[in-house]
């Protein structure tokens, strides 16, 4: 079988080993990148306010690990173009789901008052300081009827 001209690519063990250790190293790196500001506040404490950066580092390392696994372990690097198309296409299509973020990003712009970006609704934010304004309160009724406000 291995002697036929159509033999499948056999990934040599050293390549696999190298990949494995690279993956382990990347894992340690990602832990370090996430925890360094807390372990060494003197040296890396400045990173804490820049959480998007730290996020980006963590994701970049994860993507690097994923690429290693897909191309070497899963053998996509050595396979046919068709399989490459499906492997890459799957991830590209997964990113398509993130079109939904457009909604979540632009929702706080509403209601549209001449397209100015006034955050006034959108999902409840975790903190008021996130830029969300307090929700409109129902005004208390005049209470002519003696009923309590809002006791629908």
């Amino acid at each position, binding site marked *: 079988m291995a002697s036929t001209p159509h033999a499948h690519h056999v990934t040599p063990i050293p390549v696999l080993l190298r990949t494995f250790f690279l993956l382990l190293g990347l894992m340690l790196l990602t832990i370090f990148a996430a925890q360094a500001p807390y372990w060494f506040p003197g040296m890396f404490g400045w990173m804490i306010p820049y959480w998007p950066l730290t996020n980006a580092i963590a994701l970049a390392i994860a993507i690097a690990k994923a690429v290693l696994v897909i191309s070497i372990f899963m053998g996509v690097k050595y396979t046919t173009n068709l399989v490459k198309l499906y492997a890459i296409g799957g991830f590209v299509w997964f990113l398509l789901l993130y079109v939904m973020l457009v909604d979540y990003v632009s929702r706080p712009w*509403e209601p549209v008052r001449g397209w100015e970006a006034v955050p006034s609704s959108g999902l409840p934010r975790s903190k008021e300081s996130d830029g969300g304004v307090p929700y409109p309160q129902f*005004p*208390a*009724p005049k209470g002519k*009827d003696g009923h309590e406000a809002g006791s629908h």
Partner: protein
Amino acid sequence: MNIFKVLPVAPEQASERAFGYDLIFWTITILAVVFTILVFALVLALAVRYRRGSSADRRYPVYHSNGIEAVLTLVPLVLGLGIFAWSSADFVKFRQRPKESMEIFVIGKQWMWHLQHMNGIRENNELHIPVDTPITMTMISQDVIHAMYIPAFRVQYHVVPGRYTEMSFTATKPGRYKMLCAMHCGTQHSEMVGFVYVMSKSDYARWIEGGGNRYEPRAATMVAAGEQVWNRKACGNCHAGMDTVRGPTLNGIFNAQRRLTDGSTAKAAPDYLRESILLPWLRLTKGYETTMPAYKGQLTEEEVLQLIEYIKSNSNTSTSGSPQPYSAPGARTLPTPTHPENATNRANRYGSAGVTQSEEGAMNAR
């Protein structure tokens, strides 16, 4: 009989948005009809002409033509983009909150609309709003997703739990319109139905002043109760502080001698007042040929008593000038001629605008 009343093909246009909306709607309709006819004609013509065995020339068959395909791509694309641009502009306008608007707060719940006005008046499944006034609804649901849908205004927006949504519109035509829930919300979804009552501005002011028609304060005295009935039925719209073309003032009328259309006189004793309220055409005051609507069946005897008591109270204080049956600004002036419906339809509307019992009246009036 108007066939479109019985078999309507289009909903009423009762908001500022409706005309522009219908313009797009019917434009697309024309396009759709044209294209449908085009395709049907093409299919039928080709199918008949080239039916099996016909003598039509079949030489030089065309199997592909980039020119035709380009036309087939570009024409729908351009038309589609045109419609897109037009409708998007309209939609952005719809989603904009007017600079100044009256806010109504809406709570959707299974299976009912709770609405609340700025001044705290609350309504269930009914909304009274003034005509020609921008309204902004701030909406939230307390359970599942509902959709506030008023077909005559061409507006709809979901009422979502956990988040405020907004919807703005301006009603342009007094009347009664369906207010529906268009998002399936459980068992009684189809009964989550209410009505929007669009009133003239003065009617609305009076309605507001009267505290709405449902949640009015409990009156402490007979006179106060009478005042409520007075406001609810909007009697003051015609019977103002002085005689007008539409009706005589009722201030100081109690037990006074009234000159009637047939020349006779009558004393405005409680019996006469009761008769004039319930069946007014029996004895009309001189100078007023058009009769006011009969309130027989619309007022209980209790309410009539309260009204008479209220009229009496106005007569007793006549020495101190005209009494103030209500104090809303503009409420004592007559409806302005810019609202011709008021004159023509007032009889029915006064009997119904604020009341649920006589919805049919309002329907007939339109």
